[in-house]
């Protein structure tokens, strides 16, 4: 998509087409000759896996929309009809539901790979922000999709999330009323969520095009974080990256199929197989697993508005990362201290996810009562969330800016080829 194109039209038709619509040139430069750093590892295969999952979600989603009825009286039954009566409807719906989870598995690995190898740093800030936009759109899409089956978790999840926006002073109530199209989550809400749930994946696909475009302008980062300096540092995308991506996709599909065929409801909630009832809330309401860390941050703050601000702030931090990280060295291979803080951050995110699934006042260590701090016992998930939330923000706002100034990174290799072909072998 950028730089020097090496495409030479071979046939008369290709020459004719190339001077009118250079689409073969585009495909050639994007997926055939595009130079990829030769030291990419398997963490770099998740971009391809994500494209595959987006495609699969769109295809299964379009099929489900053929059978689904976006109406409060029929939505739940139409989903049950898909499960029982539509040919292979169970397969398609389980693929779609578990596909969403697998999509987030892949995107989280993709994001953490970025954090570790410093792929968000100059000149890839726009690439990173486009990725963050995709992630935001994914969250919106996933949330609205979860509402559509109109089960108990769907309904009350929608109530809780839309009420979050009500926390904002003055405009909050007006925004929630506007979102609902009524006095509560009801028929108009379901209809607009269905419409937007259908629209957003195509917006994601559009931003993916920009994301890939930006990627092809700046080129891929690599495990050393050293930009390729010569042709010796790169390999053509085909066959090297295509075959490797294809192999990784096959492995990923095995994981996906394991969920679809052997544990299709493992990541869902049993309560969502109860039709929505606005008069009764399930005893324990939690979002889907991929939202749990943010949910824990929301609940860690004892004030409604501040909780919502913290939750949105947690996402804004991710956007701002390229300017928060002051280090000149990209890859954490050569940043031992940053590596330590990174792995703590990774564990903290998992802990936050774990806290999000628990009741706030449950004990972390069963049977141990310590002392009451502010509003809860110290040995409670709410305090674990608070400590973790503190680290989450400290990682972005304190560790990343200061570490780059004070740490002493290890010597970095001259070129990508030098650590591979001997020289300093530090990994």
């Amino acid at each position, binding site marked *: 998509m950028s730089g020097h194109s090496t495409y030479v039209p071979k046939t008369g038709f290709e020459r004719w087409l190339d001077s009118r619509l250079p689409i073969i040139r585009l495909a050639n430069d994007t997926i055939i000759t595009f130079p990829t750093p*030769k*030291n990419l590892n398997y963490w770099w295969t998740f971009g391809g896996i994500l494209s595959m999952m987006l495609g699969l979600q769109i295809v299964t989603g379009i099929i489900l929309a*053929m059978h689904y009825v976006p109406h409060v009286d029929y939505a739940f039954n139409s989903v049950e009809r898909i499960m*029982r009566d539509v040919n292979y*409807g169970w397969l398609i719906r389980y693929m779609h539901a578990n596909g969403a989870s697998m999509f987030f598995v892949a995107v989280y690995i993709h994001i953490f790979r970025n954090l570790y190898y410093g792929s968000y740093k100059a000149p890839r800030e726009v690439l990173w922000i486009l990725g963050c936009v995709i992630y935001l759109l994914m969250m919106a899409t996933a949330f609205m999709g979860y509402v559509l089956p109109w089960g108990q978790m769907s309904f009350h999840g929608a109530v809780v999330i839309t009420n979050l926006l009500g926390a904002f002073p003055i405009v909050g109530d007006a925004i929630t009323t506007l979102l609902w199209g009524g006095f509560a989550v009801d028929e108009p809400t379901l209809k607009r969520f269905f419409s937007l749930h259908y629209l957003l994946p195509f917006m994601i696909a559009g931003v993916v095009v920009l994301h890939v475009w930006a990627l092809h302008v700046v080129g891929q980062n690599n*495990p050393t974080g050293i930009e390729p300096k010569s042709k010796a540092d790169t390999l053509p995308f085909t066959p090297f990256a295509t075959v490797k991506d294809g*192999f990784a996709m096959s492995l990923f599909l095995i994981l996906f199929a394991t969920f679809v065929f052997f544990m299709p409801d493992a990541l869902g909630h049993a309560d969502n197989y109860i039709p929505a009832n606005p008069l009764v809330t399930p005893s324990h309401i939690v979002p889907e697993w991929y939202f749990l860390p943010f949910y824990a941050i929301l609940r860690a703050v004892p004030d409604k508005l501040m909780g919502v601000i913290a939750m949105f702030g947690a996402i804004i931090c991710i956007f701002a990362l390229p300017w928060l990280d002051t280090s000149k060295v990209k890859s954490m291979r050569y940043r031992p201290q940053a590596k330590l803080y990174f792995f703590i951050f990774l564990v903290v995110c998992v802990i936050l996810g774990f806290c999000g699934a628990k009741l706030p006042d449950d004990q972390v260590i069963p049977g141990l009562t310590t002392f009451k701090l502010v509003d809860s016992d110290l040995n409670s998930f709410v305090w674990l969330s608070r400590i973790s939330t503190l680290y989450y923000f400290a990682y972005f706002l304190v560790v990343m800016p200061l570490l780059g100034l004070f740490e002493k990174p290890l010597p970095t290799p001259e070129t990508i080829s030098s650590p591979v072909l001997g020289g300093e072998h530090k990994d």
Partner: protein
Amino acid sequence: MVGANPDPHVTDGDPNRRDFIHIAAGVAAVGIVGTLAWPFIDQMNPAGDTLALASIEFDLSKVAEGQQVVVKWRGKPLFIRFRTPKEIEEAIKGDHADLRDPATDESRHKPGKAQYLILVGTCTHLGCVPTFGGGDYGGWFCPCHGSVYDTSGRIRKGPAPLNLLVPEYSFLSDTKVKVG
């Protein structure tokens, strides 16, 4: 991860391994796409509940002599006609006419039930619903492109190629039929 990316400048000493992974990846891709294609297509075929509703029962005593009742069956109109003796006589007379889609009147009703004619009410031309009693033969006339059917539902004039279809049906009792 050292060695994961073979260097193209080095002569590959073991081409079989790379061939294998190419073929394995290709086969995996083709296998997955092939396996998924069928469910993705088959979901558009009639669903279980659609098939379960594919047959209906009808009480013939609701039709008056010389009239027809139209009911919906599998999403299409079903003509249930109580023919007068004159109409039956004309239909039998038509057996010897030059028919585009030859069929005797007897083959188009159940034995001993000549008065009841049960037909799928869609014109065999392009699927319009013919109007009762229209046309030169007193059977049906299709308003879309002028096909004319006789009192046995056979095509006599116009663009339609075939007679009105006789659905699969059976008498459950003297006055009750099950269609489908």
